[in-house]
């Protein structure tokens, strides 16, 4: 802790506290299984998320393989549906969400000057629920009838008719939800109660703000999903009729409950991404974030609005025009706070002294492509347009611009940005830039053309298509395989950084100004702030 510079009082006794012990007595695998350290747990989250990213990616490649040519090639429609479903579930719950929880674990205690997370043991459990839930999900492939082929939204009545795999999926969702709720309670408590003296809420790095609000969304939304799949379970096995019209229920009820969770879920994924971008862009612009307070208010506004827009996923389900109008106006309203954010990121760069290392490249890629995804979202929010585009590849293109170019790009930006602090070593800048450009090109190759497919009327979740869609599908599939291979390069870059990277200085990025750069050595010590710094 020698480089902890200004604000420390080293003199007072640490007596009676045993948190100086490294790794606390367990070694080998047991160290990782029992750890209560936020950095260990963050690392496990990130590696788990990368593994799931690979598993979900292989399923995406299976989908693109089938769609390379019209006609049935490799899989029967049922297998195709299973890949579609599991790709979605694994990417959303196994890859993207855990990735950002990994960032939260590593970064929040360091950024707010805390010794660790508020509930360190609960933190361990939040992570260790995930591999078990992931196992349940993947086990469903090996049951009679295979994995559920219902789409990640798990719509009734299909879910009520599916086989054993559906039950495994339901319990997996329960456990994943438990993990998210426990993790979120931990993050909220950490941010509200563990900040260093002088670190007021409005002085926190924006990443912490976006996570505070994300965690709130998770605590509010995940139990509702748990309720929805519980109703599915009892409809399947105990004779309830929540989603069965013959018993007075309604399949549309499922959609309402699901999307009451599902739309906040979109922001649960997007807000931490915004947080990462809000750290990276100022650092490489060598300017403080433009409009910090407005960023906080915009994030809160997005969170509030996210609870009153859910039915824009259901315009074609047969809802009254008044309902469509309400959800349309509420949805377009979200463009305002999101626009504030994009404006602020651009204004941060305005007259900044910019450099373009890999994290900044990914942040800029995010900025352009996420904005594009936002615009197509605006297009889809309009009822008359959506009725044409509903369940077409236009929707697929839209949400992959948000999920991949939004969340995944910002996760890459974050990894390259903080890798020096985490490992103490620099990644290979040249390879990082190659990774960025290949990812950018292949991403657009996959998804940009899907806008055209959707506009031309190609439906999503169908393994076959008419000849006229062939060209764009071929381009998309080639892009997908290029994208997949490029991510192996990412793995190589990270491993190379860990094994043989150049030693990194305490603050490799000139413009970075949060506590982990200014107050902690590189690599960050096992216990960050045993004595809290005082922030002025």
């Amino acid at each position, binding site marked *: 802790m020698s480089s902890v510079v200004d604000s420390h009082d080293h003199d007072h006794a640490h007596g009676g506290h045993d948190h100086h012990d490294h790794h606390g007595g367990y070694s080998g695998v047991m160290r990782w299984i029992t750890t209560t350290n936020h950095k260990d747990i963050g690392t496990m989250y990130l590696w788990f998320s990368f593994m799931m990213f690979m598993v979900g990616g292989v399923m995406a490649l299976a989908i693109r393989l089938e769609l390379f040519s019209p006609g049935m090639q490799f899989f029967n429609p049922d297998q195709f549906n299973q890949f579609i479903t599991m790709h979605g579930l694994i990417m959303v719950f196994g890859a993207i969400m855990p990735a950002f929880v990994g960032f939260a674990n590593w970064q929040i205690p360091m950024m707010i000057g805390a010794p660790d997370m508020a509930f360190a043991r609960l933190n*361990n459990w939040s992570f260790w629920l995930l591999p078990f839930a992931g196992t*349940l999900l993947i086990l469903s492939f090996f049951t009679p009838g295979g994995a559920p082929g219902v789409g990640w939204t798990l719509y009734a009545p299909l879910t009520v008719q599916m086989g054993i795999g559906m039950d495994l999926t339901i319990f997996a969702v329960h456990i994943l939800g438990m993990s998210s709720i426990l993790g979120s309670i931990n993050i909220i408590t950490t941010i509200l109660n563990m900040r260093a003296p002088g670190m007021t809420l409005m002085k926190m790095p924006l990443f912490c703000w976006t996570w505070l609000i994300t965690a709130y969304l998770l605590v509010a939304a995940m139990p509702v999903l748990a309720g929805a799949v519980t109703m599915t379970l009892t409809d399947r096995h105990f004779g309830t*009729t929540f989603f069965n019209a013959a018993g007075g229920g309604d399949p549309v009820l499922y959609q309402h409950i699901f999307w009451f969770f599902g739309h906040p879920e979109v922001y649960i994924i997007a807000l931490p991404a915004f947080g990462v971008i809000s750290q990276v862009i100022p650092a490489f612009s060598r300017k403080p974030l433009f409009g910090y307070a407005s960023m906080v208010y915009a994030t809160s506004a997005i969170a509030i609005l996210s609870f009153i827009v859910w039915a824009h996923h259901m315009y074609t389900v047969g809802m009254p025009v008044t309902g469509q109008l309400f959800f349309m106006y509420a949805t377009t309203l979200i463009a305002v706070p999101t626009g504030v954010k994009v404006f602020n990121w651009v204004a941060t760069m305005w007259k900044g002294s910019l450099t373009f290392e890999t994290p900044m490249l990914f942040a800029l890629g995010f900025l352009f492509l996420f904005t594009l995804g936002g615009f197509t979202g605006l297009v889809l929010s309009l009822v008359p347009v959506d009725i044409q585009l509903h369940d077409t590849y236009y929707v697929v293109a839209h949400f992959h611009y948000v999920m991949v170019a939004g969340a995944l790009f910002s996760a890459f930006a974050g990894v390259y940005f903080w890798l020096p602090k985490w490992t103490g070593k620099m990644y290979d800048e040249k390879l990082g830039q190659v990774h960025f450009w290949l990812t950018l090109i292949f991403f657009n190759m996959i998804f940009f053309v899907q806008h055209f497919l959707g506009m031309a009327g190609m439906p999503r979740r169908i393994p076959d298509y008419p000849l006229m869609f062939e060209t764009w599908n071929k381009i998309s599939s080639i892009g997908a395989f290029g994208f997949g291979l490029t991510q192996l390069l990412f793995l190589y870059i990270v491993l190379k950084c860990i094994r043989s990277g150049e030693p990194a200085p305490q603050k490799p990025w000139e413009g970075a100004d949060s506590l982990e750069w200014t107050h902690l050595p590189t690599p960050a010590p096992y216990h960050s702030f045993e004595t809290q710094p005082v922030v002025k």
Partner: protein
Amino acid sequence: MAHSASTTPAARQQHYAVPQPMPWPILGSTSLFLMALGAVFVFNSAKGGWVGIAAGFMLLLYMMVRWFGDVIRESEGGKYGRWEDVSFRWGMSFFIFSEVMFFGAFFGALFWVRQYSVPDLGGLESQAYAWPGFSAHWPSAGPGFTEAFSAMGAWGLPAVNTLLLLSSGVTVTFAHWNLIANNRQKLLLWLGATILLGVAFLVCQATEYHHAYTELNLKLSTGAYGSTFFMLTGFHGFHVTVGAIMLTVIWFRCLKGHFKPDHHFAFEGVAWYWHFVDVVWLGLFIFVYWL
């Protein structure tokens, strides 16, 4: 130290108790995995499911006893100060909030079937093309349900249950006041009364369920009414059971001399949970039984 000028809780205390590694969380995950797998087997009539559920449940109990045991020992050993206490408060608050949202999903289902799906099924379109002759009025088990059933009245046992649960909210508060006043005898008495009221509530609910199944022909499978009635009251009853168990643990801890007038968050957390269960019941009484 400059801490005194600060506004965060850290100003009051320099060291936060960051616990040592421990094996309980992984046991918890294993137990949930076993129970989930066992339940899937049972639901699909495969052999051996109950073994998984039983093994998982035993493991869960063991995990809770050991994990909570550790925390209780640490708490009584004076490891948790004011700073940790604030963490527990935030944690419990948001946990209860998540529970509220869980019940929200089921209340949402109740409002949806009452306001939209059942009336729609009695509408002109449905009459003409799907369910001729279905008259939509609540309580309803839907057009496909042909047996006769009766709904649960509000002013018999449910009203008694309302009285029991509301009284228990009062008695737990008396217990809390006596804990603060360090009046241990009365603390045990009022806390014991709270537990007894909770148990009485559960006995009444069991009687009510028995009455529903044997005399009213009202079952979980009785369409929209049966589904919402039993899922809402059933999950609530489950929460009352958990709350009563927690109160019992707290009662024995009080008996052993745990807690101080100014340091007893475990007690307060359980009391919060008990009040939450109480408030959910009021929602149930009004929207499920009464209106």
